[in-house]
């Protein structure tokens, strides 16, 4: 510390520091400033008593208010559920068409559906619902099990190939693996399926496979290969391929005959949740 210096014009002692000729006066603080400090200390002590404050070996001092953010979150969630009650109740009574047409119900279903889809469906169908190999695209206008509101609701509720009552059961046979067809027949059939989607194919092979298709495939896929939505049989003429469009992918599917599984969501969700999800998917798809 430097020696005591008095500022000439004001007669006030300075701190003794000097910057470029500017000195700082050492005026006393106003008393209320001190009181504010004491008040802060008092407030801190009150806080210790009221709120969780001091850590210990096995937890912490809970404070007499027993404030807990965890408890508050649970409480808030319950409140939120009660708040949503009105709209949720309307979802229960309104038909799917009414929900989609009414601006308020639609907005509620879309918001709820988006969250539900992200949490439950996006894992397989993708965040945007565009699917992937083995998982159907839900945004276009090609549907395995039907794209109307009621059909979508049914598919979500019962699922696909889960073994639960109501769920779809049809399965493509593994023509190659189970040696139902010979390798040459499968090669010809592959060409036939390529030709169905209006792509250039080996004419001789297509001609050879015509009878095989009529015998083995037409029962499910139809004589023209247009599929059947009531049984989840894909349309082979629409240019959409669940397991890939290349000759190798088509041949692989004829050999191994895979079929995807979708959970029975009716066991996990209540009907109005499924309704919200249905409207969300239908509204975002190339609706039917």
């Amino acid at each position, binding site marked *: 510390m430097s020696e005591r210096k008095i500022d000439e*014009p*004001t*007669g*006030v002692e300075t*701190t003794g520091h000097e910057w470029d000729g500017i000195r*700082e*006066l*050492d*005026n*006393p*603080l*106003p*008393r*209320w*400033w*001190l009181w504010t400090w004491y008040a802060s200390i008092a407030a801190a002590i009150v806080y210790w008593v009221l709120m969780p404050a001091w850590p210990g070996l096995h937890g912490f001092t809970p404070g007499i208010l027993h404030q807990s953010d965890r408890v508050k979150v649970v409480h808030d969630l319950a409140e939120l559920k009660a708040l949503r009650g009105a709209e949720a109740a309307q979802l229960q009574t309104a038909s799917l*068409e009414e929900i*989609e*047409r009414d*601006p308020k119900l*639609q*907005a509620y279903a*879309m918001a709820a559906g988006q969250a539900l889809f992200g949490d439950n469906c996006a894992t397989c169908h*993708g*965040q*945007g*619902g*565009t699917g992937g190999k083995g998982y159907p*695209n839900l*945004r*276009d*206008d*090609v549907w395995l099990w039907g794209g109307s509101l009621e059909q979508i609701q049914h598919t979500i509720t019962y699922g696909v190939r889960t073994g639960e009552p109501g769920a779809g059961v049809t399965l493509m046979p593994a023509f190659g693996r189970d040696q139902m067809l010979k390798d040459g027949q499968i090669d010809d059939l592959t060409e036939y399926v390529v030709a169905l989607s209006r792509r250039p194919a080996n004419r001789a092979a297509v001609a050879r496979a015509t009878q095989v298709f009529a015998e083995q495939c037409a029962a499910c896929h139809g004589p023209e290969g247009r599929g059947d939505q009531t049984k989840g049989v894909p349309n082979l003429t*629409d*240019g*959409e391929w669940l397991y890939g469009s290349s000759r190798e992918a088509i041949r692989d599917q004829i050999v191994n005959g895979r079929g995807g599984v979708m959970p029975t969501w009716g066991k996990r969700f209540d009907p109005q949740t499924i309704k919200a999800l249905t*409207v969300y998917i*239908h*509204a*975002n798809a*190339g*609706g039917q």
Partner: protein
Amino acid sequence: MTVVIDRTKGQPARAAGEPVSAAARVRAKAARGGGLYQPRVPIYPKLVHGRWRAIKWAMLILTLTIYWVTPWIRWARPNGLPQQAVLVDFAGGRFYFFGIQLWPQEVYFITGLLVMAAMALFLVSALFGRLWCGYACPQTVWTDLFIYVERAFEGDRNARMRLDAAPWSFDKLWRKTGKHAVWLGIAFGTGGAWIFYFHDAPTLIRGFWVGQAAVTAYIFCALLTVTTYVFAGFTREQVCIYMCPWPRIQGAMLDQHSLQITYRADRGEARGPHKKGETWEGRGDCIDCNACVVVCPMGIDIRDGAQLECINCGLCADACDEIMDKVGRPRGLIAYDTDAAVAARAGGKPAVYKLVRPRTLYYAGALSLVSALMLWGLTHRSVLELHVLRDRTPMYVRMQDGSVRDGYTLKIANRTFYPQTVAVAFRGLNGVQLKTPGAPATTGDVLVTVEPNAVRSARIFVIAPPGGPSGDTPATFIVRDRHDRASAQTVFDSGVPK
């Protein structure tokens, strides 16, 4: 560090005794070694009568009336919207001001209002000094009101000083208790009125008394009660000196031509006591009676010149005029005057007053500009607004027939108080169809109904036939109702690389 600005340098040394202004007393005490902390020196402003005091009373009544009456003014709005003329509706995200209602997105109007207020303050300060501080600032108004109550219970300056010095007695007790009770009442009324600006006043006042109001209402009422009680009752001038930034900023607004409360030293010096019958020759008009000092609510001596503490309220001018009348000298020894005028008269030249100066022109120009912009903005404000969010997952969807569909979420804001049906159109791509959930695709416009005073989030799909342009095509969404129109730019993704 707080700095007590001292302008006593160069003043004639006081002959004997203590300095008279409170600020000077603070300094004197500090010089004697007052310790680390400075107790507030109580100020006992004496009651004064006169022109400025009358204006101050009028301003007090006017501003307090505005404050207490405004939330109770009703204003008819349709469709279940608030019926309160002035309402800051945080829950609903709206600000209502008579015929105007602002949305949070239009906060720039508030910014403009604040800029206007700042410019007006600059202009007034450059012309007439701190009129705001002296007459209209809530700190001044409520302090004035509290001093009025104090005077009613404890008497004027001398009685109050005696009472504070006296030992506790029944008389002192009931006077002090009464004063604090009324102060708390006013403070509660102040805090209570504040919350009415944020909630429908008649509903809130009923809920408030039966414990049904929101917790925030009680918290803010208590907060404003405490701050009013403390700021107007106890800290008073310390708020202006230590807490408020404006006294420090105003130094940049004032110049030697700014009118402010001025002790006309050219006329007053040399000061000194004057006995009746003595000559006024060879001396100034100031009789050193300290009338200007004892009335000052800031505890300063105006004869020290313009200073940070002075709020320009003119009470010292009133006090001095009274004395000048008594001693038979002309009024206006302390008056609204400029430094330049005082200097000119001291030099024997006539005083010149310049209200029109570059500085005042700049401030007036800036104020007019901002006001004009605000007015233009308010009158040309669109009641329909559109924002478009393009789907990112997926960017596009290809249909069986080769057509491409892009999804968009339209945020359509309807700022009117009535439901509006808007027609949504898509421009930039030929032959497209629009589709919204719940309705079939159409080549025309899609109709969307938006609730009054609300934003509707609408899903719109644009379907382009096969064979359209590749790459991204710039496009525009247009929404129209009967009166208004809004548009937003977007892009149509064909899904085919360019």
